[in-house]
């Protein structure tokens, strides 16, 4: 599989990572190389093989749906790069 520059730009956009134009070609080469490497999996017979969801032979536990902790607004916000009046501040999204 070989990725072109436009596809890499599209993936980067989906991943919300700004990639400078002059790095797209090089990146397309590297990603194509990795995809070519992983394509060997096509040789493996996986007919009727279930895709692994967990290595541990256990089902996920359930817990009671109840509030057991909380009330840390200031602690939660303390690492926000920009906060005001108990909220995170984002760039304007409504004109």
């Amino acid at each position, binding site marked *: 599989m070989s990725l072109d520059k436009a596809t890499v730009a599209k993936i980067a956009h*989906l991943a919300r990572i700004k990639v400078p134009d002059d790095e797209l070609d090089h990146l397309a080469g590297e990603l194509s190389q*990795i995809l070519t490497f992983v394509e060997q999996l096509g040789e493996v017979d996986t007919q009727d093989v279930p895709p692994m969801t967990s290595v541990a032979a256990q089902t996920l536990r359930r817990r009671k749906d109840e509030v057991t902790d909380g009330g840390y607004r200031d602690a939660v916000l303390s690492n*926000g790069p920009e906060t005001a009046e108990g909220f995170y501040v984002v760039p304007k999204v409504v004109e």
Partner: protein
Amino acid sequence: MTGLTHLTMAAALDGLAKKEFTAVELTEAHVKAVETIRPLNAFITETPEQALAMAKASDARRAKGEAGPMEGLPIAVKDLFCTKGVPTTAASHILDGFKPEYESTVTSNLWRDGAVMLGKVNLDEFAMGSANITSHHGNVISPWSPGEVGNWSRQIVPGGSSGGSAAAVAARAALGATGTDTGGSIRQPAAFTGIVGIKPTYGRCSRWGVVAFASSLDQAGPMTRTVEDAAIMLRSMCGFDPKDSTSVDMAVPDFRAALTGDIRGLKVGIPKEYRVEGMPAEIAAIWDQGIEWLKQAGAEPVEISLPHTKYALATYYIVAPAEASSNLARYDGLRYGLRVEGASLKDMYENTRGAGFGKEVRRRILIGTYVLSAGYYDAYYNKARQVRTRIKWDFDEAFKTCDVILTPTAPSTAFAIGEKMDDPIQMYLNDVFTVPASLAGLPGMSVPAGVGSDGLPLGLQLLGRPFDEETVLRVGQVIEKAAAVTATPPFMA
């Protein structure tokens, strides 16, 4: 007392119990050692004041007769574990300024048992790497590098991703360190630096409060200078945690008690597929030597087959980036860490993530995003998960005829910075022997077994049945004793 930094954990516990020295004295010696090894760039954050305060509290507990299983032992913490009030970077620019408001379960367990924190150690960014050369905080240099300190003739890598942990322990600046292992990140650096590293069974150690890379693979474990020390530290790190949905509710054995030295009659599986083409002669030789040591101790080597071994790396390089792309979506410039402004919310996201992630992390997020995107999900991601099942079945089958598996840990000794760096695939091949057990969730340990012709350490890997760390440790100690490696790094605190 410089001798204090060369003790094993077991010997340090003895000395503390016999009042030969105090936890404060032991910690002071290590705080100084941490300063001495600064040229290795092993630590991102040193916490000497906290260390001394913890040591004082430890001495007070011991005086009251309340000593825990790791009482007074100074350790280093991989900077992937959240530590309350102490910067936690994951070696990424994107976590600049992040000070967790909570403590990871694993580190909480260690402090509960009396351990003392010396600081946070360097790693590959978000634990993505095998040489500790992707850290935003700079490369870690192995204490095994030849030449004059700071002016080395070759700058040897400590392995990765737990490279700071490995360098700190090998250079005698910490009695042990926490590591995390997603595809070999504990075992490979342990092998490269001549120490012991064990990744327990998936589910043994809580992942709560550990910065996530690939959640179905990530497991914490100890890195120490002896197998006995690994047993001591592993016991403290493990345990059921309701805050991690994949944490397993099982009693934690006294791993140290499993170190009986008696492996008579044990069947040791030797996977024929691990004799990879082009394996260096000295790697093949140390493997054969390991088989011989176990035979002499009364174990029986049996050939086993793990037919899907050759597909493990390709599987890993789909599954791990896929999970990483999802896990790392949380770095949005809003809630913690770096923020780079933009004209719109979308621009702010893209600018922040473009500036915050290094090249290897970016590469993996993009691969992960691609293999999970519409039209490719089945062809890549589901296919990889199916092959992963077959890899797990291979091990299930193998463990019907053997009790433990012996392999080399890495396909070479450590390389120098600048080598193997142009080609991502070449770098990924470092993990060829460690990745399969990660995919199957099995316990795996690297034990020092010798020294290569280049003077650098060689490790052997033991893999066990799920939740049978005890056999892995027991057999590991037999190898450790038979190998009796006396070589030490040229640079030690």
